[in-house]
């Protein structure tokens, strides 16, 4: 069972980290920040969840969507490049002025969409690394009954149960 303070800290820090990630993502066009940093920040929030609630719960809730996140992010990023073709050149920025009631005038363009794609890729990749690492460190720790950990599947998580890989892992040991 994780420490009490970690669970308390988690409640405060996770929303803060996610907000900070969104802030960094949006300011990244002209100032330090951007999709990559924001993605790492959001992955840090997920890592906090893994540490405080255990990796099984996190894997159950977001694990199956990580690959789709990578694919979606890559597709968004490359499509923002294709959008530049409307302006003549691949990856040329397209900008629109949006009127938002409270915030006033916002300049939204394809670079923001590209950053969103980068953000999704980085979040998904970093979180699946962190989930994989937590699984390995779990299985490396000695189990009480000496049996191998049932959940040592590959990182390509199409199958959240990891049934197909178990036989292979057992055979190898």
């Amino acid at each position: 069972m994780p420490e009490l303070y970690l669970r308390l800290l988690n409640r405060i820090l996770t929303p803060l980290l996610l907000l900070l990630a969104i802030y960094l993502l949006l300011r990244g066009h002209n100032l330090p920040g951007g999709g990559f940093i924001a993605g790492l920040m959001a992955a840090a929030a997920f890592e906090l969840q893994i540490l405080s609630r255990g990796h099984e719960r996190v894997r159950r809730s977001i694990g199956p969507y990580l690959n789709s996140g990578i694919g979606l992010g890559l597709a968004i990023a490359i499509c923002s490049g294709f959008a530049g073709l409307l302006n003549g050149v691949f990856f040329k920025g397209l900008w629109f002025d949006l009127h938002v009631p409270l915030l006033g005038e916002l300049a939204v363009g394809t670079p923001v969409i590209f950053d969103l794609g980068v953000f999704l890729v980085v979040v998904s990749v970093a979180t699946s690394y962190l989930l994989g690492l937590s699984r390995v460190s779990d299985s490396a720790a000695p189990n009480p009954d000496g049996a191998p950990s049932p959940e040592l599947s590959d990182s390509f998580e199409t199958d959240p149960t990891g049934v197909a890989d178990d036989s292979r892992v057992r055979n190898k040991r």
Partner: protein
Amino acid sequence: MALNANLLAAPVAAPLLTAALILLFARWGGRTLIRHQVALTALALCLNLGIVLTLFYGAAVQGRRFVLQFGNWTAPFGITAYGDGLSATLLLMTAIVALAVYPFAVATIDYHRARMGFHPLYLFLLMGVNGAFLSGDLFNLYVFFEVLLMASFVLLTIGAQPAQTNSGIRYVVLNLLASTVFLVAAGVAYGTLGSLNMAQIAERLPLAAPAVRTVFAGLLMVAFGSKAALFPLFFWLPASYHTPPPAVTALFGGLLTKVGIYTLFRSFTLFFPELLLSWQPALLTIAGATMLVGALGALAQPGIRRVLSFHIISHVGFILMGLAVALSGNSLAIGFGLGAAILYLCHHMIIKTALIMAGGAVELYMGSDRLASIGGLVTRQPLLAFLFFMASISLAGVPPFSGFVSKLSLLQITLDTHHWVVSGVSLFASLLTMINMMRLWRESFWGDYSRPSRVPSRILQSTIRQQLMLIPVGALVLLSLGLGIFGERAFNLTMRVAQHALDRDAYIEAVSPSTLHSSGLRSGAFNVTGPKFPDSSTHLFASLGEPPWPAR
């Protein structure tokens, strides 16, 4: 900006977008999902071939140079993609190899590997290779090297057999070392020349101190030579190519070392053409040693794929020999050597892929590729035996196949420039290739039928799988035959491609005309399309005085 230049983004964007879509929907479905992945990947490969054929027609046949400045940011600030005849030829060969290996891969890759992401990785590898051929920027070249290294590393170890993991570690460590050397070279270029754009490096390098030029050239030679599997740096290749599934070996054998060769071509023709003359003895020695070690090493190997992977090394030596004499020629034109090397490269990519696929088919039928224990397959698989034989004699250089024309043209230029020793070595290596290929064919197809594995082959029970394996081999052998029969036309084309690649001024002007005009710098002395070529650039350095960029 014409739409045509945007075409340069497509060979990278199309595989990437398809792989992204596959990953996006990877969560839903089981075996039907794999079928959809196969369909999408095949579609992307066909699309890639179509795009690349268009590019090839524009760049190699019409002789245009495509330059795409991403987002219209000009050369020193933005990222440049550059496509000329050399890039387009390699892109075309890559597209053909990738499309040809794919049916074989579909027939032979098991469900487990497919579920772990074989098909998107195939596309990522293609994207990395295409990107490296199109990159006009040293750092992006490094990035695409890493993309293809990562994709190939996963393809090599996917399935996690112990032998695969063992070879994968050696492969990745040696390749990462080479990448580090490359990164250091990029750092040297940026620190001393102030740019990573390849056109600007080419423009400024003649003015740099001779020590900088030598260090930069040496580092690039080590990095790219290691990727291309040249003589002292080839150890990653025979250590790793025999362990993954045959389809992966065929793809690697067709594509990976060729990226290293392309970058050697590009850097020697663009950055330091004068070294092609002053380093010529060293280059020829390396080429000869690579040819000999590859061919002799192949003689000692016990398995089909090990023999074939040593032959890849041997043939890289032939290609380097062509590059080394690219700027020499007595009765033959300047650039003849490079044209011959490009033709040899095309021949090598086609026929080596076909041979590895045929050898892989033998291995899958027999359950083993140890030559000592297999034999007599000719009675069961006459078509495979025929195709293997044809591919073998094409590799060895027997007319009317493409091996003959490409070896003949290489030999012509080395004899013309009086490099007797290396010509002799290349002939001897060809003879050894012939001996090796006949050994492979005799041991696996001739004699009494013996199949060491007791487990019945899954491949033998399925006609559609056998067809999927044999049709691409047959198509590639036919392509090699066509390249041999229309050899003169093909050689004229590669000759033109080589002369375009040797024209540095046109490259620099195509990428960054503004900097050229503003600095008033025209490296006319390096225009090597004419017969005269200065062997030293010191007078250039003296006449121009201070370099036009701020000192660091």
